[in-house]
């Protein structure tokens, strides 16, 4: 049995103290070692054998600063138990691990290599223990960070459950208090140059005043701390001194580069702020910042919505007022205009005697202008009725061909005056259409009249098509299409929709007369009848207006 057995025991031990016990027991029995001590790098006793014994100071001195294993005579401790018959073996244990010292009988440590190996083995156990502790600490740290992340995640989920910024900020303040073990927490925001406490937990004051410390944090845009002064025992900020703060931490509330407040955490006890506290506080401040930012965006959105609703309401009122005005005025104008027209006709027909040549010419001009005015008034009245949804249709089975012929007859004088031929293409068999014949006629007259007015050379053609299913709408609906084609100047693509707008006339159109309402009214009427009015045109190659009417098939005419 020798020191190598003790070395083996040391290797097999679970830690330095167990190694010290195993080694001491073995060596005490076999070699007569009386004491063993392990000193840390600072020279403090880290473990002894026999357990619970106190190593004499001279043993610590022997181990202090030892660079190589060495044996030296024991210097008695005064109680007479250690004499010159004893020696001390001391050896370093490696980087930062301290030293090992053994007290044994003289000559016990003669095999220097064997004792050095024992010391190295012990040093390795110490190092193993140190690494193990380090791993455990790292594991605990990682676990704690994971727990913190989970908790912050939970806070985020809870905060997402509400749009109420007060609720979110109070939630953040309360959670911050317990996660950071603080006495109180305030959330402060900057508005119009002032800092205001918008949420708080744990404050003694009922109505918190403005917090200059929070303002400083927001201005500095970085974490700041407050510490109680030695002399007064309070912090040098009246707001927080009144709250009994001993230690404080403030972090800015910032989002997308904008700082708009501060989160302040107060401790009423001495407390050593750790980097963890600042890290967590910044994360929590992020939650508060998001809540504030969301609240601001939400507020701005709500304000804009209110403004738009107000504007919309005004617009609706204005439109209704306009419609009322047009309807009323048109009605009021029509009666005197009809009266004027009547008297003019009587005069022109010579009911009150012959009208001399020049006077007749003036009278005819006045009569034409009056008719134009009446036409405009009728259009405005139709339009206002359409817009107000008050135009009533009289839908009955109608023969389209008859309607077309009536419209062509109406337009004939104008066509003759302009020397434009209006022709009807070969007529296909068409079923009767359930529609308002007067309104269809009105549309056709408008289309034919426009075609004649805008055609300087050539002709106007009217054709009809009986179509199934329309433009592939898959409904099985049948349609009649009436096409009014002219050989006029055509309409540029960008104007093809504009011409259907009220009071819109493209360049050059005004010279040809009209109110700018005809097509708008015609399209509205067509749609009211369940159909549509569209145009196909190419500049320089004329235009074709297509009136589409739905058909309920009862037979062909």
């Amino acid at each position, binding site marked *: 049995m020798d020191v190598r057995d003790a070395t083996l025991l040391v290797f097999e031990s679970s830690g330095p103290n167990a190694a010290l016990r195993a080694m001491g027991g073995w060596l005490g029995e076999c070699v007569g070692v009386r004491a063993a001590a392990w000193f840390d790098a600072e020279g403090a006793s880290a473990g002894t054998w026999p357990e619970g014994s106190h190593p004499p100071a001279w043993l610590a001195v022997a181990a202090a600063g030892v660079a190589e294993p060495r044996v030296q005579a024991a210097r008695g401790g005064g109680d007479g138990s250690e004499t010159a018959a004893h020696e001390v073996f001391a050896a370093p244990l490696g980087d930062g691990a301290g030293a090992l010292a053994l007290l044994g009988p003289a000559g016990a440590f003669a095999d220097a290599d064997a004792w050095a190996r024992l010391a190295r083995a012990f040093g390795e156990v110490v190092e193993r223990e140190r690494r193990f502790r380090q791993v455990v600490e790292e594991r605990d740290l990682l676990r704690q960070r994971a*727990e913190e992340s*989970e908790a912050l995640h*939970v806070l985020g*989920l809870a905060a997402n459950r509400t749009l109420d910024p007060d609720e979110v900020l109070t*939630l953040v303040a309360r*959670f911050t*208090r*317990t996660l950071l*073990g603080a006495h109180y927490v305030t959330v402060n925001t900057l508005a119009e140059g002032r800092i205001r406490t918008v949420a708080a937990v744990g404050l003694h004051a009922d109505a918190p005043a403005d917090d200059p410390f929070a303002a400083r944090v927001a201005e500095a845009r970085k974490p700041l701390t407050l510490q109680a002064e030695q002399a007064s025992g309070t912090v040098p900020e009246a707001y927080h001194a009144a709250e009994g703060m001993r230690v404080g931490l403030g972090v800015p509330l910032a989002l997308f580069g904008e700082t708009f407040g501060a989160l302040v955490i107060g401790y009423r*006890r001495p407390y050593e702020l750790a980097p963890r506290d600042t890290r967590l506080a910044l994360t929590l401040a992020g939650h508060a910042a998001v809540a504030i930012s969301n609240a601001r965006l939400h507020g701005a959105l709500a304000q804009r919505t209110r403004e738009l609703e107000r504007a919309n309401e005004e617009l609706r009122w204005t439109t209704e007022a306009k419609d009322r005005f047009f309807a009323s005025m048109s009605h009021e104008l029509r009666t005197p205009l009809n009266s004027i027209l009547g008297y003019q006709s009587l005069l022109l027909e010579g009911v009150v005697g012959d009208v001399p040549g020049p006077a007749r010419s003036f009278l005819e001009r006045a009569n034409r202008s009056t008719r134009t005015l009446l036409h405009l008034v009728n259009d405005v009245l139709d339009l206002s009725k359409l817009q107000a949804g008050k135009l009533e249709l009289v839908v009955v089975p109608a023969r389209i061909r008859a309607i077309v012929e009536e419209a062509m007859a109406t337009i004939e004088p104008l066509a003759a005056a302009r020397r434009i031929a209006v022709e009807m293409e070969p007529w296909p068999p068409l079923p009767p259409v359930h529609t308002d014949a007067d309104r269809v006629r009105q549309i056709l007259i408008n289309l034919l009249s426009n075609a004649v007015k805008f055609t300087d050379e050539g002709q106007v053609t009217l054709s009809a098509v009986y179509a199934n299913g329309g433009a592939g709408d898959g409904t099985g609906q049948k349609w009649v299409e009436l096409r009014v084609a002219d050989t006029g100047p055509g309409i540029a693509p960008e104007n093809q929709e504009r011409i259907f707008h009220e009071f819109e006339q493209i360049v050059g159109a005004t010279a040809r007369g009209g109110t700018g309402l005809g097509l708008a009214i015609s399209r509205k009427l067509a749609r009211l009848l369940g159909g549509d009015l569209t145009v196909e045109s190419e500049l320089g190659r004329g235009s074709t207006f297509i009136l589409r009417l739905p058909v309920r098939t009862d037979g062909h005419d």
Partner: protein
Amino acid sequence: MVTTEAPATPHALAADAFEQEQLGHWDAAARLYSLSFRAAVLEGDVPQAAESLRGQARVLIQEDRFDEAAELVELSREIAERAGLLQAAARAINVLGIIYYRRQKWTAANEQYRQALELALDLGDDDLAGLAVQNAGVIAYVRGDLREARSLYLESIGAFVRSGNTANASMAYNNLAIACSDLHEWLEADIYFTRGIELAERQQQSPLLAKLYGNRAEPLIEIDEIEQAVETLDRGAAVAHAVGDRLALADVERLRARLARLRGDIDDAAAHLELALDLASKPSLERASVFREMALLRAAQSRYDETRDAYLSASELYRTLGAVGLARDTADALAAWDAQTFPRSEEM
């Protein structure tokens, strides 16, 4: 050869007592706390004496012996304060709050929790801070203030994360998840139950695990994760059987009944509910919840009188237990069912 066993230390006895307490073995826990207290007095270990008294009081509370519990906890506080053990005194105040709570004296209980929290913050005792806030959360919950309960449970999680007390954090997650379930925040509830389960599994906290597994089934059913719900109920039942937790088993049976009802197996649902009522035979929140589930089943069967009776039984039991929020919620559910089933015609 005769061997002598070293006498158990007050600490060791208290540790054993705590283990029994966690398992719900109240008699054994009370006896061990009592032995621990005597040993602590003999050794002059005042902190342990105060703690053992507090532990004994907690066990008495579980047995509804509130007067005795109050005496012990007052004594614990007295001892602690005289010895300058502020932390022990603060913990005694917290236990006093629990006694008030069990006696349905909400205001007094909240005041105790507030004091305990203040002291905990002064002492930097994060674990006690977490307990005090969590207990306040329980009061908010039974009073029906679910959002406040949710906030308080969240605060308690913050404190337990700080203190590193995984066991308490697990309980806090369970409570938070229950509040979220009642708020119909199903996804969150599932996340929190899952988190509580992770922590409890790490700690091998079987009694709490039985509850967590069982409770998690409710949000899973609501989000239509039926397979997972069945699985977690089976786990809950296995653990609850192992630790002998009849109330946790009753909850499992109640939720199995719901699953059966939802798949249209009315007879199976009724059988599970009968079993649940047997398991939760004494007045408890779990028993009230079984009545509530029974009402849903009877409504599905168009058995109107029994539906009304079940709702009324649940509501009455909640009210008796002081759970005014749940009682109100049940009464509302009854009124809604009534209005839907028997719509009143317009008076001419």
